[in-house]
């Protein structure tokens, strides 16, 4: 199954604008995590939202989760050029599986 499909695939905005990225998944999940990856580098954990949570904030990040629609969104407010990166959602299924299933990601470009 294709869990964790993000859209848009690419997003280009101006510094100071907000960026919204969406993620859809297909199976019941235990939690959903968002990661950031700078070009050719490692994955940096941003935020985790549990299946019984609807919204979570961390600094300029806001994540929502709608389990009825099997979707999540990541909002970055007041974006900066340094936010330029690829953003991935990763889901952990219910039922004890430990693996994270990643989407293809959204490539965000913040223009100064």
């Amino acid at each position, binding site marked *: 199954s294709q869990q964790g499909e993000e859209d848009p695939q690419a997003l280009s905005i101006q510094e100071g604008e907000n960026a919204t990225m969406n993620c859809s998944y297909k199976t019941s999940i235990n939690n959903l995590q968002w990661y950031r990856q700078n070009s050719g580098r490692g994955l940096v954990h941003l935020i985790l939202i549990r299946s019984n949570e609807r919204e979570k904030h961390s600094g300029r990040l806001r994540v929502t989760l709608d389990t009825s629609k099997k979707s999540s969104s990541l909002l970055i407010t007041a974006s900066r050029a340094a936010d330029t990166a690829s953003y991935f959602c990763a889901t952990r299924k219910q039922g004890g599986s*430990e693996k994270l299933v990643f989407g293809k990601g959204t490539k965000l470009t913040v223009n100064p």
Partner: protein
Amino acid sequence: EPEVTQTPSHQVTQMGQEVILRCVPISNHLYFYWYRQILGQKVEFLVSFYNNEISEKSEIFDDQFSVERPDGSNFTLKIRSTKLEDSAMYFCASSTYRDRPYEQYFGPGTRLTVT
């Protein structure tokens, strides 16, 4: 802040050779993972490891792959006879508890190039 480290950052090897990728997970973590990312593709799960044994593995993790925790700190991924299609970025990750939704923390990756 504690972090996962990986060595080497880049490994070039010839097809058919054995490679060992090394990782030092975060010290109080109990679960360890390997993922890979072929260029331009999704990050894919390979294997998870707990209590000195494999707890879950994907279809990708065939007999060519093995993992080991040789001492109290290192966690290794061995590819016995590399193929061209093994070229990818390999990420190690670690987490605390399995049954709680704890975050998996990733290392910076090892870029493996098979020629």
